[in-house]
């Protein structure tokens, strides 16, 4: 019962703020609405029992990426001016694509909803996540861990090279 209330609150937050974020003409407001969506997503992860993902989502997305967006918005535009007003005729193809895609996904979901499965409440402990991340066995993730560390190194070097002062 409490779980359902929390889910519906988070779901309403996500739906409302994601639609507001993509339709708002003020850039900084769109960034703030996106921040709320990311925080609500972290809440969904916690609701499902994945505490580690909750922490990662908040620290990486809400606390890292959104800060990057906000200071890049402030660097590249005056925060006060709005986006230009676009006539609704130009927005029609985008709206049509989004609605058509959603109709397709909705049809697939409702076609399969009778195969509803009940969830077993499993909460991955940190010990399980740690041994899975650092292991070299069958379902274990040491190689992707090393690969993503190389990717982040390349990203750091690339970012410095691209954005340095000439």
């Amino acid at each position, binding site marked *: 019962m409490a779980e359902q209330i929390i889910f519906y609150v988070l779901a309403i937050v996500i739906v409302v703020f*994601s*639609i507001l974020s993509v339709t708002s003409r003020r850039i900084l407001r*769109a960034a703030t609405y996106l921040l709320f969506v990311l925080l609500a997503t972290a809440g969904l992860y916690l609701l*499902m029992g994945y505490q580690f993902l909750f922490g990662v989502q908040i620290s990486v997305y809400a606390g890292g990426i959104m800060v990057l967006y906000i200071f890049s918005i402030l660097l590249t535009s005056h925060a006060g001016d709005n986006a230009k007003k676009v006539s609704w005729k130009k927005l029609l193809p985008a709206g049509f*694509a989004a609605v058509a895609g959603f109709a397709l996904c909705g049809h697939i979901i409702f076609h399969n909803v009778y195969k509803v499965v009940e969830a*077993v409440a499993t909460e991955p402990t940190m010990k399980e996540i740690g041994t899975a991340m650092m292991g070299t066995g069958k379902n274990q993730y040491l190689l992707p861990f090393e690969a*993503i560390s190389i990717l982040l190194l390349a990203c750091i070097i690339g*970012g410095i090279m691209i954005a340095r002062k000439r």
Partner: protein
Amino acid sequence: MMSTIPLAAYLILTAIMFFAGVYGFLSRRNMLTILMSLELMLNAADINFVVFNKYLYPGQLDGAFFALFAIGVSAAETAIAIAIIINIYRNIKNIYVDEVSKMKY
């Protein structure tokens, strides 16, 4: 202990989030807002991975790890994209996709 929230509810929620991101990606003119819509799409996909992990494969951790690595890759990609956009802004003083359409030569 069973969860009382059906799988379809999560999937409809992520579908709404994803297609809001698709609409924003196709309709926005500022490069940064296009990137923000891309973040919405990536987050919707991450939630989907975790939801399928919980409901269909509860003993394993594959979906959660995929979402974890996807969050990391998305952070790296966002950083590089913002660096490129700042570089464009330094050169052309403009980041609207309508007006950045001339090639160098």
